[in-house]
């Protein structure tokens, strides 16, 4: 079962190990007896690379070529909503952020009922502002100007 699909899992893991190894290459490793900051990450990275290779091997031998559903729509919608939060929360306030985020999620959901989106976004933003902002003293603003 030597399909590309089957090696993806192990490859990804090995890739992660390589990434940690590469970015950690500057840290002094020291000896095992006097461990430097680099020793542990490098050791872990090497183990990860090895395990990733084993997974690739195991998947190639046992794999059934299961279809992987990346759920692109879900990813784009959820990450989109999160990015909206990251970009707008401090600049535009909670109300706008909430409405836009709910809109994006609703688009991802498939059915777009504007009234529902508007209502949910409104209630959610105000509720969160009330609980977190007013009730718990978190510094988040509902509207860009103040409040």
């Amino acid at each position, binding site marked *: 079962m030597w399909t590309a699909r089957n090696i993806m899992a192990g490859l990804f893991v090995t890739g992660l190990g390589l990434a940690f190894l590469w*970015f*950690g290459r500057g840290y002094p490793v020291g000896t095992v007896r006097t461990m430097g900051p680099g020793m542990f990450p490098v050791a872990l990275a090497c183990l990860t690379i090895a395990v990733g290779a084993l997974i690739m091997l195991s998947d190639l031998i046992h794999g059934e070529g299961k279809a992987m559903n990346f759920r692109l*729509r*879900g990813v784009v919608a*959820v990450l989109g*909503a*999160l990015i909206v939060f990251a970009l707008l929360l401090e600049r535009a306030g909670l109300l706008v952020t909430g409405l836009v985020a709910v809109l994006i999620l609703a688009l991802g959901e498939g059915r777009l009922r504007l009234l529902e989106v508007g209502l949910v976004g409104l209630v959610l933003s105000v509720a969160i502002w009330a609980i*977190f902002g007013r009730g718990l003293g978190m510094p988040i603003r509902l509207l860009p100007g103040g409040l």
Partner: protein
Amino acid sequence: MQEFLSGLSVALDPWNILYCLLGVTLGNLVGVLPGIGAIAAISILLPVTFYMEPLAAIIMLAGVYYGAEYGGSIASILLNLPGTASNAITTIDGYPMAQRGDAGLALLTTQVSSFVGGCLGIIAMVALSPLIMQFSLSFGPAEYFATLVLGLVAAAVALQGSMLRGLAMVLVGMMLGTVGMDLNSGAARYTFGMAGLMDGLSIVAVAMALFGLPEVIANLGNRETAGEAVTVTARAMMQNIRKLGACIPSMLRGSAVGGFLGPLPGAGPTIASLMAYSVERSFNRNNPLFGKGAERGVAAPESANNAAAQTAFIPTMTLGIPGTPTMAILLGALMIHGIAPGPRLVADHPDLFWGLIASFWIGNVLLLLLNIPLIGLWAKLVSVPRRFLFPVIVALICTGVYGLSNSVFSIWVVIAIGLLGHVLRVLGFSPAPLLIGFVLGPLVEQYFRRGLLISGGDFTYFLETPTSLILHAITLSIFLWMLLRPLLVRSRTTITVPGGGS
């Protein structure tokens, strides 16, 4: 006993009762709603608890944890959709019971079984914790190292079908744990110059991103699985009270299995309920109904998962070693409040420890009182369309994480980890071992270093005491068992676990 009573008086403080009630209600709610589990809820509530007293905070968060074990069975029975992973087994006998009109009996059985399991778990906690703490006072770096390694291997093995994949996740988690400033040398590891990473990745951000987001991503846009939401009333439940007697042995068996498995690293309520079901099946070979709608089939797993939820606190509180991802987050909550779990916990904070245990009992009682009269309400909630939940989850995650650091940097971290978590999920990996590796990894490094420092570079230090040897031997045997199992045992059942970790 004396301390328990003093703890009880602290737990009966009106504010603490209020937070307990809040916690168990939220936990129950989160358990009832499929798609969001206790671990996501606890992560979301974690920033909220900053503003609270440590005891109140942990009472509430713990309440969410074992409350979810009560509520989860409701969705299992009524919708054939488990509310939490540990209630998946309850669907097997619970849903057929609901279909033939016995929903009331099924629900009563699960609620009472959960109560029995919870109470017995609490008794185990009260009895065993002081003993374990005494024992662990003698723990040095070598013993801690051995326990942590055991915990990591157990997590890799137990929480994911394939050991290789579990191991990979533990390792990735440990690597993520190295991000930030290394306390020993002051060197900044993997921070790429970003100040927000100097303290490392926040466990709240990682937990929320790994457990809350992939669930939403996977289910967004799915057509709602319209189950026949059966309506139930409290009266329908209570009519069956006489039939409970036959289930008492099952409840006791389930509690025993759960109570035993709860403290074991890597095990948890989910595995406890699975094992209790298997055990119960062997006691019910002559029962034609078993597997198709037998009360005993729901009583045993429900007692087990609640008992396990309670006893899981034992290693977390007494040793500072969490057995499951959720426990890891609770541990994080304690540390954020400046409480270091471990052998010194009872000595330094007796009111916290015993107050918490007393609150468990109060919480279990509250849950029983909550779920029987209000069962109609919970039944209705079970059918809330998921598309209303998703915005709430995303908004709560963002706000919670933002509140942690007052900067949107944390949200970017959630985005990055969320993407990672999604890719891993698609590739067939489970996030639970990753979180355990993330939490335990830095500790392993620390104890390893300390051990070498004490022994002057001598590796045999880690194998000197009998305790360390035994622990390492157990770890090794688990390792070998998993390697050789495919050769010895033919079939392997995989159970897909919704909602993330236990």
